[in-house]
Structure formats: C-alpha cells, structure tokens
C-alpha cells in the first residue's frame, strides 16, 4: 500500500468511531454508479456579483475511474478511437501510448488500472458510447469535496491533511488499480489519490485575453498573491486542480489524467 493510501486508510479507520454522514439511499443508481444527492458547490473563484455557490442537481457518478479494460472494450467497438486511427485534432501523439497495441494492453497497462493518456474527446466519446456524459467541474468538485466522514470535506482537517499529502507526493511509476483506496461518504472511490480526471467543461476557467475585465482574475490565478481573492485560501488541492484544468487543451493526453462518467437522474 502506498504511503498516501495508507494515510487515507488511517483517516477512514479513525472515522469509524465518529458518526458519519450516511451514504444516501441510491435506488436509481445505474450499475457501477453512485447517486450523488443535490447540494451546493462553492467555486474557488467567482466573478463579481456572482453568487458564492452553484447548485448541483442530484446526479449519478461512476464509482470508479474508467479502467484500461473498459476502455479496451470501447475501442474494440469503435475503431475510429483506436490508437492508430486517431485524428490528431482529437488526441495528441501520446494517446494510449502505454498500451502495447491498438487492441492490446500489454505489460504497462493493467486491466483494472485507470485508463490514462486519453484526451477529452476520447473521454467524451467513451461516455457517449455508455449513454453517459462527463461530469461538470461543479459536479466533480462537489462530489470530491466529500470526505470519508462528511459531505463538507473542507471542514474535516484530517481529510484535508491527507489530500495535501497526496497532492504533494510524486505519482508512482505504476498506478494502483481502481478501488484500492476507501470510498468517500457518497460511496465514490479514487476521486483523490489515483489520477486527475477530465470534466466536461474543463475549459470554463477564464484566463488570458478574456472578456469583461477578467484579466485581474488571470493574475490572481498565476501569481503568488493569487489566493487573496479566493474563497478558501487553505484549499491548496483545489488550486492545483483549477490550475491543472486551466492548463489543459482538449487533445492533450497526460500520464496521470483519466476520467469517470456521470449521468442525469
């Protein structure tokens, strides 16, 4: 067990004695998915005159990130998403580079490891094929804000400490399988501690050259004093995710960037 999973495990084991938030009853969850109840997401940055919270409607989210095995089924069924057939506009040249072939995972890509080296387009196409979609930033952040004990994970110092530890630890050369950690109180695994994940509107962060006087926001994002305008200056992991998303382009593929799917209920 990697050190950070161990720490998360300790956190969760310690939580067994605390009365936690019960997982919501999930009668309508499709197989492999978890119902995330309606709630509020507090964006890291809001424009002036914008409300401080964004309502998130009840939705379903995959319990685990999509695995190499699942993605292999997808490319089997959809030849245009095979590595050799990929149009460069939809994925860069590193697309699925850890696989040994178009339809072979090989030694570097375990069936149960999260799929990585996938572009936003590929993730989106997979989700559509499954009759699902990618989660929005608001949905993902809301779901991921929940700790093992409580929905408002930001008020759980132990959970925050475990997160900071993960976000400052190098990624292991070999990714663990999905579901090796412990679920958050919604019953979702691996939102932190395994890979970064694509969201449908990753390109909603407003950066350089943008409309309506947001250039100040841009400076806030990339300068040291940036956290002054943000809602929660201690939420370093949220800053990292915000910055990471801002740096992405839709065809990019990255060694530790995967995805999971969402669905309306």
């Amino acid at each position, binding site marked *: 067990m990697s050190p950070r999973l161990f720490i998360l495990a300790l956190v969760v084991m310690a939580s067994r004695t605390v009365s936690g938030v019960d997982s919501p009853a999930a009668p309508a969850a499709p197989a492999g998915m978890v119902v995330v109840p309606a709630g509020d997401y507090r964006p890291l940055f809001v424009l002036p005159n914008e409300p401080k919270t964004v309502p998130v409607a009840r939705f379903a989210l995959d319990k685990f990130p999509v695995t190499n095995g699942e993605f292999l089924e997808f490319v089997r069924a959809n030849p245009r998403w095979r590595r050799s057939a990929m*149009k460069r*506009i*939809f994925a860069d040249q590193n697309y699925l580079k850890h696989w040994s072939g178009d339809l072979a995972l090989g030694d570097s890509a375990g069936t149960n490891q999260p799929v990585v080296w996938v572009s936003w*387009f590929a993730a989106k196409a997979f989700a559509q094929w499954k009759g699902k979609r990618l989660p929005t930033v608001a949905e993902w952040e809301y779901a991921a804000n929940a700790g093992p004990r409580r929905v408002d994970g930001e008020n759980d110092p132990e959970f925050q400490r475990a997160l900071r530890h993960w976000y400052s630890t190098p*990624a*292991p050369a070999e990714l663990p399988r999905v579901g090796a950690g412990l679920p958050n109180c919604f019953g979702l695994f691996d939102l932190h501690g395994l890979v970064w994940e694509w969201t449908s*509107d990753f*390109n909603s962060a*407003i950066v350089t050259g943008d409309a309506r006087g947001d250039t100040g926001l841009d400076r806030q994002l990339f300068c040291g004093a940036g956290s002054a305008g943000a809602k929660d200056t201690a939420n370093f992991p949220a800053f990292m995710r915000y910055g990471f998303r*801002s740096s992405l382009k839709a065809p990019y593929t990255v060694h530790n960037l995967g995805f999971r799917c969402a669905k309306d209920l």
Partner: protein
Amino acid sequence: MTTNRKSLFASLVGSISLASTICLSLSSCGTQSPEKPPCCQTIKSGVPISDQSLYQLDSRWTSDQGREIQLGHLRGQPQVIAMVFTSCEFACPVIVNDMKRIAAALPRDVQSKVNFTLISFDHERDTPEKLRVFRQRMQLPMAGWTLLRGEADDVRELAALLGVNYRKDARGQYAHSNILTVLSPNGEMVHQQMGLNQSPDESVKQLLHLLQP
C-alpha cells in the same frame, strides 16, 4: 521512475503555447477556389481532410437563415472564425469589428474569397432569429458572413478545439476568451489573433498566403 506533480503542473502551464505552435504549422494541402459559395457546396468526400482539420467534427449547426450545416460545409474557402453571443454588451461587438477590419484590409480582388463565421456560445437564447437580428444590427452582408448556433455540447466541443474558454455567469452572460482563428480552406487552424482591438496585419498576411495559387 516518478514524476513530480508540481513539475508536471508547471510544464503544462508552460505548454499552453503548444497548441498555438501547432496552429501555426501551415498545412501542405493546396488551396482551391470554390465555384459556389460555401453554403451550396457539398462536402467533397473523395478528397480526405487532414487529421488536423476542424472539419472532422460531425456536429450540426443552424445558420441565421435556418439552414442546417456541418462545419465541413465551410470547406473550400479560408475562414476567419470567432465565438460570440448576441446579447454580449462589450467584447463581442469589438470581436465582430476586428473581423470587419480584417475584411477591409484584404485587397479588393480577394475579399470575396474569404468567409467570416460567427458561432454563438448562447445555445439557449441565440435562436436563428436572434442571429438574424444580430446580422442586421452589426451590418454584416449576406455574402461572406456565416452566423451559426448549435447545441450546448457541440459549442463546448468547438470551443475546446479553438482553445476558447467560456462560462455563463449568474446573469446569463458569458465570460469568454477573445480569439479569432484563421482556418485554411481545409479547416486547419493556421493562425489565432488573441485579444481585442488587435492589428489585422498578421491575419491578413495568413489569409493572403492561403489564397496564393
């Protein structure tokens, strides 16, 4: 072997310019002068479009004239393409004006060989009728200007390809990147003009290059 997340983050931030570098690499495909205006051409399925072409998208769009098209219908002419929304109070009229400046700076004999395309962020409010009103308000001629609306997912996808970031604020207005993109006749991005009130010179230069026989 491990990779440090922080350095990954830094390198990604550093590589924001990567996409624009790709955009600058000119296609080796030749230019072709169309006999018909873009709306009336059929997609030439015999000639494959490149891996880098925006015309790989199969999303469907509706023009202010109520015509349903795929972006591939724009094939054949260089395009100057921008994303706007019609209830925009500030930036969008400036973007349109920047496009008009490019049009005006083109030599007379090639003005009709470039098409200008505006695509709306506002899939909810920008109906074809709203786009028609916008065309009148901005005094855009029928010839050479295409106004399109699409569904939410397709708008998001096109924006992702163009490197345009946007989000709707609480008042239903859109905060968005201000980017004009020059497309080759085959839909490859060859140049992007970033920001408002920029000189049209580089875009004009790129268009003239694309129009060379």
